[in-house]
């Protein structure tokens, strides 16, 4: 049997707004293997971010179960969920979500502070990570003093602080221009291939297609289809062709 990192079982998420109930996820079943690069694609409002939140334990499903490393997330205590977010997952968001009161370095060290890592060790690690994402010369800048692409690099370095086995990225390139977006995708892909990190990314960005192992198409809160790498390559060709 394959090594399944993430498994969702009939995950339903409803949002209640007054008397209306909006079913953002309508029974999602997916299995993601360790080391995969998965893209969640779908039109705006299809439920990508909602699913992202369920997998990352950032919100609770209305019905259904999410298993990470075989562990049923709904059975975890508050402290276990905090530890899970701290150690197992790295989050990357469209809007970076850096703490603007902390420098690039301070943002990267924070998850390590929460993990109880010594000051010396976390400083070294933060420097190493910021070097890796190409921000070695901007470590002590505040997020407000960085460009969008640089902020996203800080976010990536921060996501990797506690060596997570899963990186969740919600439209990491949506606020970036094509070239910067490409660089960010390459960076994430490198983590995936070199460090074996499982990457789950929600995206509209077609550039994400050719680095993905599988693409999960989401529509109206349902998995519409799942495409494999070989099927993708044909379509990337088509997309490229259309552009000319």
């Amino acid at each position, binding site marked *: 049997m394959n090594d399944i990192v993430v498994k969702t079982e009939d995950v339903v998420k409803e949002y209640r707004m007054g008397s209306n109930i909006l079913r953002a996820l309508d029974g999602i079943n997916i299995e993601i293997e360790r080391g995969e690069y998965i893209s969640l694609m779908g039109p705006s409002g299809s439920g990508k971010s909602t699913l992202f939140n369920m997998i990352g334990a950032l919100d609770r499903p209305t019905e259904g179960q999410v298993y990470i490393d*075989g562990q049923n997330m709904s059975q975890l205590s508050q402290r276990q969920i905090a*530890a899970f977010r701290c*150690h197992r997952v790295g989050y990357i968001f469209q809007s970076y979500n850096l703490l603007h009161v902390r420098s690039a370095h301070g943002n990267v060290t924070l998850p390590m502070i929460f993990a109880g890592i010594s000051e010396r060790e976390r400083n070294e690690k933060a420097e190493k990570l910021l070097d890796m994402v190409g921000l070695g010369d901007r470590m002590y800048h505040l997020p407000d003093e960085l460009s969008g692409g640089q902020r996203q690099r800080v976010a990536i370095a921060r996501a990797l602080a506690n060596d997570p086995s899963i990186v969740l990225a919600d439209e990491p390139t949506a606020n970036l221009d094509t070239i910067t977006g490409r660089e960010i995708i390459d960076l994430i892909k490198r983590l995936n291939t070199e460090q074996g990190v499982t990457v789950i990314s929600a995206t509209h960005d077609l550039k994400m297609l050719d680095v993905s192992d599988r693409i999960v198409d989401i529509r109206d809160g349902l998995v519409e289809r799942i495409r494999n790498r070989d099927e993708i390559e044909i379509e990337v060709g088509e997309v490229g062709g259309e552009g000319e």
Partner: protein
Amino acid sequence: MQQRTPIEEQIDLPFVESLRISFQSLKIRFGRSIITTAGITLGIAFLVSVWTNNEIGVALQESGRQSTINTFEETTEQGISTKDIWLIVMSLIVCVVGIANSMLMAVTERFREIGTMKCLGALDGFVVRLFLLESGFQGFSGALIGALIGTLGAVLLGLKDYGLDLFFYFPLLPAQPENGPMQLGVIVVILLGCILGMILAVIGSSFPAWRAAKLPPAEAMRTEV
């Protein structure tokens, strides 16, 4: 499914670490911190000035000294007028509402930060402690400055009304006159002002922070201010 690596329990942060994070946050957001603190300062300055002014009035009246300007037209036997009580109650309300409001605003604009910290592994308790420390410090320093400004204001007013006699009968310490109400004295009023300012700031900040910390991070991060 493969091996189950059990998920460990999140640890508590050492107090010093929380203290460092909160002070760093206050320092970097200095401008904004000052505005929030100014809200506390104003509320307490108003309350303390009204209160001290009243203490001064009562003290000088006890001493048998008539004020040059008659501010005691409604004086009751006890020496405290309903107008003064009204003023103190009003200033207390203004102070409570003002501080609660400025703390609430300061926390609301940080919901996203709270959600983000939880994504990185912060426990709810840590978030609350962070806001407790920050607001406690802001509350104490803001209230102390406010109390001193308020006292100064009341002294200036007293000087205008009573001249230098003010200093002979200045109600610095608590006193219990034979036939009058207990007087708290200005020092106690200043202390009470500081404590009140700090308590209001801490409650006004920790309560919304606690509510935000309990939200799932996805929801906390959705709030745009």
